[in-house]
């Protein structure tokens, strides 16, 4: 039954909609020219995705895809769930690439004067020869080469700023000729910055102290003892801070 229905449906689709030729791992398929993403196109062709699929909305990096076109060998990179198929697109997914990451505690990241913590964790970083492949691969269009240079110079703040949108899809590691993993290096840089370099939130620290010292305990007890009506009245009368 299912086979018949699918065949009949396909026939109907092809009558009404222009079809595109795409190539999945070298196999040619026809998919409707209807704005399908690479991910939707894979499923249209009958693939039941196990690897290479995650949030389906551009946040998690699971569906990193490498592609080019039959008429143009230049390699391009994108997220399958966010990239629309085009005529003659040639697609391969690399859902995983081996990258040994350093194991560390946040405590290990504490910056030290005169020491580049990132080079300490990832010594290979110094073998980068600036080929810029990492930048080319980034489906988020980040200036990866720049933040790798920043990492080499120990400028953690810049690493944080430039790598913030990183989804850790792993494509930069898959294509780095020196076997580096820019996404892991940047992650360590961002964590270091967040834990140690970002200005501390004094008011937060103060509030935590107040709570721990029990400053709010008495008020809380009062609220717990109120009747439903009293609570509603208190709620209706509370002052609301202007939004902006």
């Amino acid at each position, binding site marked *: 039954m299912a086979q018949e229905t699918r065949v009949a449906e396909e026939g109907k689709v092809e009558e009404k909609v222009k079809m595109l030729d795409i190539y999945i791992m070298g196999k040619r398929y026809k998919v409707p020219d209807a704005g399908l993403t690479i991910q939707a196109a894979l499923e249209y062709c009958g693939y039941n995705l196990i690897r290479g699929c995650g949030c389906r909305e551009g946040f998690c990096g699971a569906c990193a895809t490498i592609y*080019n076109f039959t008429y143009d060998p230049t390699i391009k990179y994108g997220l399958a769930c966010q990239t629309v198929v085009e005529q003659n697109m040639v697609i391969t997914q690399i859902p995983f*690439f*081996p990258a040994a990451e350093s194991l560390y505690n946040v405590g290990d990241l504490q910056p030290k004067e005169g020491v580049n913590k990132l080079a300490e964790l990832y010594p290979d970083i110094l073998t980068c020869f600036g080929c810029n492949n990492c930048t080319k691969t980034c489906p988020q269009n980040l200036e990866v080469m720049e933040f790798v240079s920043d990492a080499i110079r120990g400028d953690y703040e810049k690493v944080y700023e430039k790598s913030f949108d990183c989804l850790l899809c792993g494509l930069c590691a898959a*294509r780095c000729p020196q076997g580096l993993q820019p996404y892991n290096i940047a992650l360590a840089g961002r964590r270091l910055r967040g834990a140690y370099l970002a200005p501390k939130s004094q008011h937060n620290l103060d509030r935590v102290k107040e709570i721990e010292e029990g400053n709010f305990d008495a008020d809380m007890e009062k609220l717990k003892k109120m009747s439903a009506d009293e609570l509603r009245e208190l709620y209706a009368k509370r002052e609301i801070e202007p939004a902006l």
Partner: protein
Amino acid sequence: MAEAEVAEKVRMFDIYVMEKRYKVPEGLTIQTALEYCGYRLIRGCGCRGGSCGACATVYNFTHDPTLRYGLACQTAVEQDMCVVQIPCFPTAKPSYDLKELKPTGEQVLEIYPDLATCFGCNNCTQSCPQDIEVMDFMSAALRGDFSAVTAESFECVMCGMCAARCPQGLSPYNIAMLIRRLHGRYLLPKSKHLEEKVKEIEEGKYDAEYEKLRSTPMEELRRIYDERWIEPK
């Protein structure tokens, strides 16, 4: 054999298949280890004997991030190995008609203009599971030295790993393929005795003798066979 029984008798390794940890007995190749873990291979499996390149694998170790490359069917598993297969990598291969090509370096550049963008990073050599000096033949290709390319690339099983790792998007294996064909057709001297023999056959020189053998009775045929002169090795 139940897993526990296996573990008692044989040393077990921890390996990571796309980061999932499995325990496998010592002595397996990456390919048979995948099957031991329950994977039934569709992609990434071919001749199972080291000749076809289907099972190209990238791996490293939890204790050593250096990337290594091998054929899954020919590489033994080791403790803490982390493996991933790359069964396909997009490379646009142009069409050409060998009869219309000239066996020159310029001709190769015309078909593969990107060849000139190679900057000698040596990733291709590092990624070759056949231990071919890929960088050497890429240089030879740029110099138009077809014999050197043919000799150096002869063991290429076309696994595609060099293309997967070339930062300039080149496919050394396709470039070498074209050059070897040009070498075989144009640069190796023609075989005169082959051409002569083909001519003789087409002129029907051997047909009568075959007809005679065809109608020879079996006893006689066997005798002729047993008594035929065998050229010394």
